[in-house]
Protein backbone atom coordinates (compact mmCIF):
# COMPACT_ATOMS: atom_id res chain seq x y z
CA UNK A 1 0.00 0.00 0.00
CA UNK A 2 1.23 3.45 -0.88
CA UNK A 3 2.23 5.55 2.10
CA UNK A 4 1.51 9.19 2.76
CA UNK A 5 5.15 10.11 2.30
CA UNK A 6 5.34 8.45 -1.12
CA UNK A 7 2.19 10.17 -2.29
CA UNK A 8 3.44 13.58 -1.18
CA UNK A 9 6.79 12.85 -2.77
CA UNK A 10 5.13 11.97 -6.09
CA UNK A 11 3.15 15.23 -5.96
CA UNK A 12 6.34 17.14 -5.21
CA UNK A 13 8.15 15.55 -8.17
CA UNK A 14 5.23 16.36 -10.49
CA UNK A 15 5.32 19.96 -9.24
CA UNK A 16 9.05 20.20 -9.98
CA UNK A 17 8.43 18.88 -13.50
CA UNK A 18 5.59 21.35 -14.11
CA UNK A 19 7.81 24.20 -12.96
CA UNK A 20 10.70 22.95 -15.10
CA UNK A 21 8.55 22.67 -18.23
CA UNK A 22 7.02 26.08 -17.56
CA UNK A 23 10.40 27.75 -17.11
CA UNK A 24 11.58 26.24 -20.40
CA UNK A 25 8.56 27.12 -22.52
CA UNK A 26 7.31 30.46 -21.21
CA UNK A 27 8.48 33.63 -22.91
CA UNK A 28 7.26 36.18 -20.38
CA UNK A 29 9.84 36.82 -17.65
CA UNK A 30 7.26 37.06 -14.85
CA UNK A 31 5.75 33.73 -15.92
CA UNK A 32 9.17 32.13 -15.84
CA UNK A 33 9.63 33.38 -12.29
CA UNK A 34 6.22 31.94 -11.34
CA UNK A 35 7.34 28.61 -12.79
CA UNK A 36 10.56 28.75 -10.78
CA UNK A 37 8.66 29.34 -7.58
CA UNK A 38 6.43 26.33 -8.38
CA UNK A 39 9.49 24.12 -8.76
CA UNK A 40 10.81 25.58 -5.51
CA UNK A 41 7.65 24.51 -3.67
CA UNK A 42 7.96 21.05 -5.23
CA UNK A 43 11.48 20.64 -3.85
CA UNK A 44 10.26 21.61 -0.39
CA UNK A 45 7.50 19.00 -0.51
CA UNK A 46 9.92 16.25 -1.60
CA UNK A 47 12.38 17.08 1.19
CA UNK A 48 9.72 17.14 3.89
CA UNK A 49 8.29 13.86 2.59
CA UNK A 50 11.75 12.24 2.90
CA UNK A 51 11.73 13.05 6.62
CA UNK A 52 8.23 11.73 7.26
CA UNK A 53 7.74 8.39 8.99
CA UNK A 54 4.50 6.51 9.29
CA UNK A 55 2.68 6.73 12.59
CA UNK A 56 4.96 9.31 14.15
CA UNK A 57 4.34 12.91 15.09
CA UNK A 58 5.99 16.32 14.90
CA UNK A 59 9.39 16.81 16.61
CA UNK A 60 8.06 18.91 19.49
CA UNK A 61 8.38 17.64 23.04
CA UNK A 62 5.28 18.32 25.12
CA UNK A 63 2.68 16.47 27.15
CA UNK A 64 1.82 14.22 24.20
CA UNK A 65 5.47 13.33 23.48
CA UNK A 66 7.44 12.93 26.73
CA UNK A 67 11.22 13.12 26.52
CA UNK A 68 11.64 9.42 27.28
CA UNK A 69 9.52 8.40 24.28
CA UNK A 70 11.00 10.91 21.86
CA UNK A 71 13.11 8.34 20.08
CA UNK A 72 10.13 6.25 19.01
CA UNK A 73 7.52 8.96 18.63
CA UNK A 74 8.96 11.83 16.58
CA UNK A 75 9.92 12.10 12.92
CA UNK A 76 13.26 13.21 11.54
CA UNK A 77 13.71 16.94 12.37
CA UNK A 78 16.71 17.55 10.10
CA UNK A 79 14.88 17.85 6.72
CA UNK A 80 12.40 20.21 8.35
CA UNK A 81 15.17 22.54 9.53
CA UNK A 82 16.65 22.36 6.04
CA UNK A 83 13.37 23.23 4.32
CA UNK A 84 12.76 26.10 6.74
CA UNK A 85 16.04 27.61 5.59
CA UNK A 86 15.23 26.88 1.94
CA UNK A 87 11.86 28.66 2.06
CA UNK A 88 13.35 31.84 3.49
CA UNK A 89 16.23 31.89 1.00
CA UNK A 90 13.68 31.10 -1.74
CA UNK A 91 11.87 34.37 -1.04
CA UNK A 92 15.18 36.23 -1.20
CA UNK A 93 15.96 34.68 -4.58
CA UNK A 94 12.47 35.39 -5.92
CA UNK A 95 12.69 39.03 -4.83
CA UNK A 96 16.06 39.31 -6.57
CA UNK A 97 14.68 37.82 -9.81
CA UNK A 98 11.70 40.18 -9.69
CA UNK A 99 13.93 43.21 -9.12
CA UNK A 100 16.03 42.32 -12.15
CA UNK A 101 12.90 41.67 -14.23
CA UNK A 102 11.63 45.12 -13.29
CA UNK A 103 14.95 46.68 -14.22
CA UNK A 104 14.99 44.86 -17.57
CA UNK A 105 11.48 46.07 -18.28
CA UNK A 106 12.52 49.62 -17.47
CA UNK A 107 15.29 49.44 -20.06
CA UNK A 108 13.64 47.44 -22.84
CA UNK A 109 9.93 48.11 -22.29
CA UNK A 110 9.14 44.46 -22.67
CA UNK A 111 9.10 41.28 -20.63
CA UNK A 112 9.44 39.02 -23.65
CA UNK A 113 12.58 36.94 -23.31
CA UNK A 114 12.80 36.48 -27.09
CA UNK A 115 13.30 40.22 -27.58
CA UNK A 116 16.32 40.38 -25.31
CA UNK A 117 18.97 39.65 -27.88
CA UNK A 118 22.16 41.31 -26.66
CA UNK A 119 23.85 38.06 -25.81
CA UNK A 120 22.47 36.16 -28.81
CA UNK A 121 24.76 35.11 -31.62
Amino acid at each position, binding site marked *: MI*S*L*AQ*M*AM*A*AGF*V*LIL*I*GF*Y*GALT*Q*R*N*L*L*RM*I*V*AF*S*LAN*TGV*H*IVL*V*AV*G*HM*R*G*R*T*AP*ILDAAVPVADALTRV*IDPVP*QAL*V*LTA*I*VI*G*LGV*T*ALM*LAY*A*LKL*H*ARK*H*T*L*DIAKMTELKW
Partner: protein
Amino acid sequence: MNSMSPLILGLSVLLCVTLIGAALVAIRATRLPIAILAAGLVSLIASILFLVLAAPDVAMTEAAIGSGLTTFLFFFVLARVRGAEKDGDELAGDELAGVKHDGVGK
Protein backbone atom coordinates in the same frame (compact mmCIF):
# COMPACT_ATOMS: atom_id res chain seq x y z
CA MET B 1 -2.42 7.62 14.53
CA ASN B 2 -0.73 4.24 14.26
CA SER B 3 -2.41 3.15 11.09
CA MET B 4 -3.29 5.79 8.59
CA SER B 5 -6.95 6.60 8.90
CA PRO B 6 -9.01 6.74 5.69
CA LEU B 7 -9.86 10.36 6.48
CA ILE B 8 -6.21 11.42 6.42
CA LEU B 9 -5.62 9.36 3.29
CA GLY B 10 -8.59 10.90 1.50
CA LEU B 11 -7.55 14.38 2.57
CA SER B 12 -4.03 13.95 1.30
CA VAL B 13 -5.18 12.51 -2.05
CA LEU B 14 -7.45 15.53 -2.41
CA LEU B 15 -4.61 17.90 -1.48
CA CYS B 16 -2.18 16.35 -3.98
CA VAL B 17 -4.72 16.47 -6.82
CA THR B 18 -5.64 20.10 -6.09
CA LEU B 19 -1.97 20.99 -5.81
CA ILE B 20 -1.18 19.68 -9.27
CA GLY B 21 -4.35 21.20 -10.72
CA ALA B 22 -3.46 24.62 -9.33
CA ALA B 23 0.10 24.28 -10.64
CA LEU B 24 -1.26 23.53 -14.14
CA VAL B 25 -3.48 26.61 -13.90
CA ALA B 26 -0.44 28.67 -12.85
CA ILE B 27 1.42 27.54 -15.96
CA ARG B 28 -1.44 27.64 -18.48
CA ALA B 29 -3.58 30.62 -17.40
CA THR B 30 -3.93 33.26 -20.09
CA ARG B 31 -3.91 36.17 -17.65
CA LEU B 32 -0.89 36.85 -15.50
CA PRO B 33 -2.77 37.77 -12.26
CA ILE B 34 -4.59 34.43 -12.38
CA ALA B 35 -1.27 32.63 -12.81
CA ILE B 36 0.24 34.47 -9.83
CA LEU B 37 -2.78 33.75 -7.63
CA ALA B 38 -2.70 30.08 -8.65
CA ALA B 39 0.98 29.91 -7.66
CA GLY B 40 0.01 31.37 -4.27
CA LEU B 41 -2.71 28.72 -4.01
CA VAL B 42 -0.12 26.01 -4.70
CA SER B 43 1.93 27.31 -1.76
CA LEU B 44 -1.13 27.43 0.49
CA ILE B 45 -2.11 23.83 -0.32
CA ALA B 46 1.51 22.78 0.13
CA SER B 47 1.45 24.27 3.61
CA ILE B 48 -1.61 22.16 4.51
CA LEU B 49 0.22 19.15 3.11
CA PHE B 50 3.19 19.96 5.38
CA LEU B 51 0.82 19.97 8.33
CA VAL B 52 -0.45 16.51 7.36
CA LEU B 53 3.18 15.40 7.04
CA ALA B 54 3.75 16.44 10.71
CA ALA B 55 5.90 19.47 9.95
CA PRO B 56 4.10 22.42 11.60
CA ASP B 57 7.19 24.67 11.54
CA VAL B 58 7.54 24.31 7.80
CA ALA B 59 3.79 24.74 7.34
CA MET B 60 3.86 28.10 9.13
CA THR B 61 6.83 29.31 7.16
CA GLU B 62 5.33 28.29 3.83
CA ALA B 63 1.97 29.91 4.67
CA ALA B 64 3.53 33.20 5.79
CA ILE B 65 6.32 33.48 3.23
CA GLY B 66 5.46 31.27 0.26
CA SER B 67 1.83 32.16 -0.15
CA GLY B 68 1.76 35.55 1.58
CA LEU B 69 4.80 37.68 0.85
CA THR B 70 5.81 36.09 -2.47
CA THR B 71 2.38 36.68 -4.02
CA PHE B 72 2.48 40.34 -3.03
CA LEU B 73 6.00 40.78 -4.37
CA PHE B 74 4.69 39.53 -7.73
CA PHE B 75 1.75 41.92 -7.61
CA PHE B 76 3.96 44.90 -6.77
CA VAL B 77 6.10 44.16 -9.81
CA LEU B 78 3.03 43.57 -11.98
CA ALA B 79 1.58 46.93 -10.97
CA ARG B 80 4.84 48.72 -11.83
CA VAL B 81 5.04 46.96 -15.21
CA ARG B 82 1.46 47.85 -16.03
CA GLY B 83 2.01 51.49 -15.08
CA ALA B 84 4.82 51.75 -17.60
CA GLU B 85 2.72 50.42 -20.44
CA LYS B 86 0.60 53.49 -20.75
CA ASP B 87 3.51 55.06 -22.62
CA GLY B 88 2.34 53.32 -25.76
CA ASP B 89 5.10 50.77 -25.92
CA GLU B 90 4.44 47.49 -27.50
CA LEU B 91 3.31 44.95 -25.00
CA ALA B 92 5.14 41.89 -23.95
CA GLY B 93 2.42 39.56 -25.07
CA ASP B 94 -1.26 38.86 -25.08
CA GLU B 95 -1.34 38.14 -21.35
CA LEU B 96 -0.27 41.65 -20.45
CA ALA B 97 -2.90 43.05 -22.77
CA GLY B 98 -5.43 41.05 -20.82
CA VAL B 99 -4.07 42.47 -17.59
CA LYS B 100 -4.62 45.98 -18.75
CA HIS B 101 -8.37 45.67 -18.93
CA ASP B 102 -8.98 43.75 -15.74
CA GLY B 103 -8.14 44.86 -12.27
CA VAL B 104 -5.27 43.26 -10.44
CA GLY B 105 -7.63 42.00 -7.79
CA LYS B 106 -9.63 39.94 -10.25
